[in-house]
């Protein structure tokens, strides 16, 4: 594998890191009880839908294994497939651009739009463009970007950030959405109710004008097929279809890991993705295009932004199998309590906790691998069988290593871990440690004295009582028992 250990593979920049460590951001998010209610309602509904449509496929586990194997082949031969894609897109009249990181991708996209003279672009399927912060880059040169996916429109009008990969406005309920529309849509009916069809109709009227006037569209991609040069987008609303077909210029920004080698691979993913993502047997709209159609210009921007660097880690690279279905977010007990913003990256939840630190380098997202109880729910639902819990443990190791390299002085945690490790690696020392523990029983039982114990104890006792410490360890009891026998 030629990519292994590529020196200086570019690090991911853009919206992949937060301003504060996860525990601090999560503490803030937990205070928002409205957010927790919205998240609980939404994730509970989607979890049940997913479980029902997955259960009806007898070959789900085989499909999942096939999905994982297809993606692993892509990752192992990425260089070959990505060149094949380029050749086929070019052959069909498209123009392929290569972007090492977010800044390069933004520069390419901005220049392409400027060349058309358009002052406004319509956008769809834009998580990759959220990753690179394209809307801000366009705005900086006076170009307005209109999100056309309903949820992304809500996020954009709310001057907000996506909090979920698939349902970016999952943190908003319908009353909040009505308020955003009333405030931000110029021609909206002032009597707008919070009835979902009424909200959808308001968005439809707002967007229809944009579709008809836009000359440039910017999209993401769910899949790109190397052997044909075909790109594919799956969606629910049909707004993507309008973006892809109406404007004269189409610019697609795609992470290089979205590749599939063969046309026939798509069959596996068109089953895995909708069932895992929206809990539907099939998504309402699947759009595919190969190169440029007559009268249209097509540009494909291939984005690295930390993906090659991720590929270099044999224990972490499977994170690039991800097809952005969000099933792991919907089952994650941590995500359900805090929502997506606490992760600080456009990729939140369990997959974000393994992907973001790899895209940026562990130093920028060192707290994310610890944002999990390792409960395993994410692995269970992942349609491409990414072993997120094991990957989190692996990345925790890298985070600890990084911290040790940064500081000559060991952290408090590493002192505790080393001391415990030393005590536990010898039965004799462990026995002494257990005796000391028994001696601490009066302190532990005393709520006033407990307050003077080190910081970790107070983090425990904030919401829970300490267990009572027994007079004797089990091994001491066992020793008495066996010695008492003749």
């Amino acid at each position, binding site marked *: 594998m030629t990519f292994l250990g590529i020196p200086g593979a570019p690090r991911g920049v853009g919206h992949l890191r937060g301003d504060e460590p996860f525990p601090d951001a999560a503490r803030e998010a937990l205070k928002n009880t409205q957010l927790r209610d919205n998240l609980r309602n939404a994730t509970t509904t989607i979890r049940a839908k997913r479980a029902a449509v997955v259960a009806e496929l007898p070959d789900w586990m085989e499909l999942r294994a096939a999905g994982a194997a297809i993606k692993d082949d892509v990752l192992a031969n990425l260089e070959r497939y990505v060149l094949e894609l380029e050749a086929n897109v070019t052959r069909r009249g498209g123009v392929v651009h290569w972007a090492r990181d977010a800044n390069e991708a933004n520069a390419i996209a901005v220049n392409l739009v400027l060349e058309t003279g358009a002052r406004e672009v319509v956008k769809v399927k834009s998580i990759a463009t959220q990753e690179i912060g394209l809307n801000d880059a366009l705005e900086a040169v006076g170009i307005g970007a209109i999100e056309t996916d309903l949820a992304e429109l809500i996020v954009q009008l709310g001057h907000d950030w996506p909090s979920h990969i698939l349902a970016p406005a999952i943190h908003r309920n319908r009353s909040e959405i009505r308020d955003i529309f009333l405030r931000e849509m110029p021609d909206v009916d002032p009597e707008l109710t919070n009835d979902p069809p009424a909200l959808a109709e308001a968005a439809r009227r707002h967007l229809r004008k944009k579709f008809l006037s836009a000359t440039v569209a910017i999209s993401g991609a769910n899949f790109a097929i190397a052997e044909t040069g075909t790109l594919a987008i799956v969606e629910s609303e049909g707004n993507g279809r309008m973006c892809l077909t109406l404007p004269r210029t189409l610019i697609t920004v795609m992470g290089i890991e979205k590749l599939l080698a063969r046309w026939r691979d798509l069959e596996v993913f068109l089953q895995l993705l909708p069932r895992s993502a929206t809990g539907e047997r099939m998504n309402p709209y699947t759009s595919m295009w190969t190169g440029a159609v007559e009268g249209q210009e097509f540009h494909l921007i291939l984005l690295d932004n930390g993906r090659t660097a991720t590929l270099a880690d044999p224990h972490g690279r499977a994170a690039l199998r991800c097809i952005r279905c969000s099933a792991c977010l919907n089952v994650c007990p941590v995500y359900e309590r805090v929502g997506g913003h606490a992760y600080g990256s456009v990729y939140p939840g369990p997959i974000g906790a393994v992907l973001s630190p790899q895209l940026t380098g562990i130093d920028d997202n060192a707290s994310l691998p610890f944002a999990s109880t*390792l409960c395993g729910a994410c692995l269970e639902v992942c349609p491409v069988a990414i072993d997120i819990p094991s990957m989190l443990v692996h990345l925790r190791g890298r985070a600890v290593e990084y911290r040790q390299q940064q500081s000559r002085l060991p952290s408090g945690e590493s002192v505790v871990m080393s001391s415990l490790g030393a005590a536990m*690696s010898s039965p004799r020392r462990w026995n002494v440690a257990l005796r000391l523990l028994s001696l601490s029983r009066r302190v532990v039982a005393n709520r006033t004295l407990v307050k003077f114990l080190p910081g970790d104890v107070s983090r*425990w006792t904030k919401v829970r009582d300490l267990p009572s410490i027994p007079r004797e360890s089990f091994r001491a009891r066992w020793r008495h028992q066996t010695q008492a026998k003749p």
Partner: protein
Amino acid sequence: MRVGLFITCLVDGVFPDVGDAMVQLLRRLDVDVDVPLQQTCCGQMHINSGYGSLALPLIKNQVRSFDGYDVVVAPSASCVGSVRHQYEQIARARGDERLVDEVLALAKRTYELSEFLVDVLGVTDVGAYFPHRVAYHPTCHSLRALHTADRSVRLLAAVEGIDLVALSLAESCCGFGGTFALKNSDVSGAMLGDKVECVVQSGAGFVTAADSSCLMHIGGGLTRVGASARTIHLAEVLASTR
């Protein structure tokens, strides 16, 4: 069949009654059980906290401790999960082929209590008597790492006098997660709050599980809010008799 009790560091130091219950229960079922005192801790805490290299001597000690035992049984799904799923990865990462073979052999004969009873001994009715209202919390490692939660339920259902009540959102993690409880204590507390509420709503007098660690966390939450329900390890329920 010579059975070694893998007591786990937490039970050894904090919940010795669970260890007593394990011995009592296994002896009642005519199992030749012994406790090798060479054992200390399986190393899971070090592994899951990112200190895999510190776990290495603990893994080697675990292998040595249970050398010569046909079967190893533990009152913890998560510690068994570590032996079964993590040891091999650590040994391979070290490139120590001999250790790889040793940990694979250990993993193959290490069992969580309920799978040992149901799958190895072939018993579901262990002759227990526990006339109380009990809610069972399937711990994440019972449910998703070892897939043994169904065995625990079958064992509990066969206990005489027990009133086994359903726990709503039972499969949701309690929020313990080892050092997660400290590093992300706020999120952990929020998850615990929801679990405690479900236990209270169930009307159970006891909540039981296969892991003392999760029970320590849930129990600490129950007493903190003044709930009357108490935690009890699966082994203690199964060891109870008339």
